[in-house]
């Protein structure tokens, strides 16, 4: 049957990518359909119950700055909040929260159900409708045909999932969901380049059987942080601590004795797992010298006793799992509620995507989330948001949008994926961002909210709050730059307390704020001014003053590469025509067809000389416009 409504955008999958994609498209006024195999699992955290962390927290703030749901849902469902790296500089500080699964899910579900322009429908998608090289819609399990101009596929780990516990395995999606096998088969038929990855979870534990008295308590921060730029601590439910346990030599012995029945060590699993999130068997095998590993016991919610022991992900047989858990101090009597397992799943080589996440092969078909070879809710949400935005833009024939590497971690994520592909599940780290000092949690809104407003994903409430903040920052910066202090003006004791010693000449206040030891608060005490009270504004003033030298330098670097970075390469270019390119470079570039010269330069194995050759060729063939200023050379 043909469904009577025709949509602008259909989003397939109701995980973190799918929900952000659907919400973004609907916020932009597109008639949007979210298709999920189960409405009950919308917004489900299928792995560990936490959101954020280094690099990931940065992504969540960016999603928030673009009007996404993840940060607010975490504020409403978070039961422990911490700022990681709080003793280090602002660029690497990151928010992390434990979330109550049920509250989080409810917060997401509420948003989905109350979002204008968004339709929800429960049906597994089996097939896509393709007309020529364009997407036209999808077909569900019972043969319903839904038509749309654009389709966003966020089927995540459900694609061709294979779960392993010991040497037993069965076909399934994450956490008991059915795997999307027929869709995977259909996509394989379209011969999009695919690969296989692996990830795992630990056994879950009944909290009533844990002896907390022998464990180290890890409380949340005080004052309690918030995630969203619009959030407040009052939104948070009751807060809980986490607990830290440790493996010991006996634990390791038990694991070693079970390796002959490990699907990883017997070669049953073919997918590649992440290096940074190793299973506990990997940890003790690869780092035999380490006597003990941390295990973080994380509460899964307020209304449940279930505990997520973060750090002992495993696919060993269940009998080994029981013994290994019970060898840990404090868990001697632990009851396992669900066994740990490893899951293998399909992903599509993201080098087949444009930076809008549209597939290069099929127009109007967008991929977002784990399907692109990433891991993590935050990475999924960020991609979903971008894919949703671009599907919406596409549906109304508007040009695609993607932030650059110097603008957002989302930009780094996209660019890494589409130029370098993945060799393991991709996770964000701050070290992936060369412009790390500029891409901070605290300024995600300054980097993105304005462009988000133009695109149409930022609503009035957020826009007004943002504009007020920006005005306050501009006003106060101006004042600090204009206001001079003179030696005679300053009380000797206060000056010594704040600046170390009395000043010998006049200074603008802004100049003093640039000194590492001078806080905004202390600066105000010099002159007795009241200043700005909004902590977000204060923070921006301080950071921008202190980082200025470094940020100016990075801006320079960006400026220098801008021309190359954004020079577009025509889609139909045959690299075999580019004189001087090595055969290897020609082949690589012909397969991945980068959209810009900047992207081409980041494809592995493409040298600066190859980029120069391309530039010369493009100029010749397509009369690339004005070369701008190339700097001075001798």
């Amino acid at each position, binding site marked *: 049957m043909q469904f009577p409504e025709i949509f602008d955008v259909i989003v397939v999958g109701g995980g973190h990518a799918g929900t952000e994609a659907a919400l973004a498209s609907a916020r932009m006024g597109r008639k949007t359909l979210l298709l999920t195999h189960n409405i009950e699992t919308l917004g489900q955290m299928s792995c560990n119950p936490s959101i954020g962390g280094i690099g990931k927290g940065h992504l969540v703030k960016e999603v928030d700055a673009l009007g996404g749901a993840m940060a607010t849902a975490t504020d409403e469902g978070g039961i422990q909040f911490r700022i990681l790296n709080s003793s280090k*500089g602002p660029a690497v500080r990151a928010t992390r929260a434990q979330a109550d699964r049920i509250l989080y899910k409810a917060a997401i579900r509420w948003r989905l159900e109350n979002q204008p322009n968004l339709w929800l429908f429960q049906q597994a998608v089996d097939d896509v409708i393709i007309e020529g090289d364009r997407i036209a819609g999808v077909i569900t399990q019972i043969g319903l045909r839904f038509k749309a101009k654009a389709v966003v596929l966020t089927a995540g780990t459900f694609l061709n999932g294979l779960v392993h516990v010991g040497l037993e395995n069965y076909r399934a999606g994450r956490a008991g969901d059915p795997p999307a096998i027929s869709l995977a088969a259909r996509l394989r038929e379209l011969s999009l380049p695919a690969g296989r990855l692996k990830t795992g979870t630990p056994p879950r534990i009944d909290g009533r059987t844990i002896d907390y008295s022998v464990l180290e308590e890890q409380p949340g921060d005080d004052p309690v942080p918030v995630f969203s730029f619009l959030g407040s601590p009052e939104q948070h439910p009751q807060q809980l601590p986490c607990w830290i346990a440790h493996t010991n030599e006996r634990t390791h012995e038990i694991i070693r004795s079970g390796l002959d029945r490990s699907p990883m060590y017997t070669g049953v699993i073919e997918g590649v797992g992440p290096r940074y999130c190793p299973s506990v068997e990997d*940890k003790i095998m690869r780092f035999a010298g380490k006597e003990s590993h941390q295990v973080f016991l994380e509460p899964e919610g307020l209304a449940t006793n279930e505990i997520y022991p973060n750090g002992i992900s495993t696919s060993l047989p269940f009998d080994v799992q029981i013994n290994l858990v019970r060898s840990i101090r404090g868990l001697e009597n632990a009851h396992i509620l669900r066994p740990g397992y490893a899951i293998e799943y399909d992903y599509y080589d993201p080098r087949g995507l444009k930076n809008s996440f549209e597939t290069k092969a099929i127009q109007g078909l967008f991929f977002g989330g784990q399907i692109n070879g990433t891991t993590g809710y935050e990475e999924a949400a960020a991609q979903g948001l971008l894919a949703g935005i671009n599907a919406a833009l596409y549906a109304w024939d508007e040009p695609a949008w993607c932030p650059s590497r110097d603008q957002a971690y989302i930009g780094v994520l996209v660019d890494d994926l589409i130029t370098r592909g993945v060799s393991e599940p991709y996770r964000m*780290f*701050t070290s992936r961002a060369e412009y*790390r000092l500029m891409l901070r949690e605290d300024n995600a809104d300054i980097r993105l909210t304005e462009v988000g407003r133009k695109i149409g994903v930022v609503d009035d409430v957020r826009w007004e709050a943002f504009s007020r903040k920006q005005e306050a920052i501009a006003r106060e910066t101006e004042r600090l730059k204009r206001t001079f202090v003179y030696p005679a003006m300053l009380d000797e004791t206060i000056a010594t307390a704040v600046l170390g010693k009395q000043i010998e000449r006049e200074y603008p206040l802004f100049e003093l704020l640039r000194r590492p030891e001078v806080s905004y608060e202390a600066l105000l005490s010099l002159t007795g001014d009241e200043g700005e009270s909004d902590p977000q504004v204060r923070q921006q003033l301080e950071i921008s003053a202190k980082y200025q030298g470094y940020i100016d330098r990075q801006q320079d670097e960006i400026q220098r590469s801008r021309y190359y970075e954004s020079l577009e390469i025509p889609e139909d270019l045959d690299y075999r025509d580019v*004189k001087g390119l090595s055969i290897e470079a020609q082949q690589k570039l012909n397969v991945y067809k980068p959209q810009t010269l900047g992207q081409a330069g980041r494809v592995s194995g493409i040298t600066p*000389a190859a980029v120069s*050759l391309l530039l010369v060729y493009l100029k*010749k063939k397509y009369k690339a416009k004005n070369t701008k200023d190339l700097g*001075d050379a001798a």
Partner: protein
Amino acid sequence: MIRVSGRAAPDIAVTILGRCPSPRHATYIDFLDTDGSTIDRGIAIYFPAPHSYTGENILELQGHGGTAVLQRLLQRCLALGAKLAEPGEFTKRAYLNDKLDLAQAEAVADLIDASTDLAARSAMRSLSGEFSSHVHALRERLINLRMYVEACLDFPEEDIDFITEGGVIDKLESIRNELSLLSTTAKQGSILREGIQVVLIGQPNVGKSSLMNQLAGQDIAIVTAIAGTTRDTIRSEIQLEGVPIHVIDTAGLRETVDEVEIFGIQRTWRAAETAHIALILVDATHGITENEKSILARLSGVPQQIWIHNKIDLVNSSPEIREVDGKTHIFLSAKTGHGISLLKQHLLELAGWRAGTEGVFMARQRHLKALDGVSQSIENAKKNLNQAELLAEDLRLAQESLNEITGEFTSDDLLGEIFGRFCIGK
């Protein structure tokens, strides 16, 4: 000659010459150092945009001095904000600014393609021995240090105090020492004065020693009609337009039982190992034989090999240079001196003494400049020991500078180092 192209060329002129010369007029003028002293005196010509080779403002400085003086002048330009031209950069700019036509664009491509790889390889050789092993040691240390610093930023929840365990402060200090060692060596000039190494190689009696004497303009090596005259390697430095070139005459290659000759032949191969250019001599009366082909096969590590067909006076042909299958063949007579100028000209071109191509000299400048960048960043890093994220930024910049010598090292490579070394992750 030094050529500066870009918007700031007139500003650089004002600083170095005291004024910007009037457009397109050769002006005889002093080139001034930072302290106002004269580096050299020579001709300066200023071509304002767009009426210049590249279409940008161009300043040309042509001095009298040799390599060392030129070197100082170049440093001065770099200090004033110019960057070293990439291989083929001037031609590329000319092209991009619509100064060259389509056909010439092909030539640009050739230029970039051919010169980069070769020059980089030669330059690494010219920095050979102690110098290059220092550079590699430096790279290892920098990566190791970054591994700890980045791990401390990205993995604060691990039970490892990366900064303390990694001995970050000590490591930074040892990198500084390594660098200052390197830069003093460089400043003493031993490396810069090394020049390019040219080895003369071939069967006995083909005329290697005769060619050596011709190039040097004096009788350095003994020449006789007896095969196996030269027993040991003989070195001589010659200057071609101020560019130092080390010519090495070697024992002729052949099967032999003579113990002295066997040692000599071993030395011949050793000399070839560090050479930038091998001149393979052939007796023109025989042409290239199987023996010569097997010599060529053993010289694949030398960046450039050139066939020298000697004794053309015996076959009555005239001097000539031509390309066959990507190899240069020069026909000359070491006895009469005919064709020697062709060889000299060609050597100069390979040394990078022609506008547009990048030779060993320029590539090496780039390396030294890169090391300067590393030093700068490491000095900054020392000031940021208490701010790990700024320390990390300085180290990243140091790595980027070093990458220009040693090749790409990506953030993903760095993560690989971290995951290989530490047990990270929950």
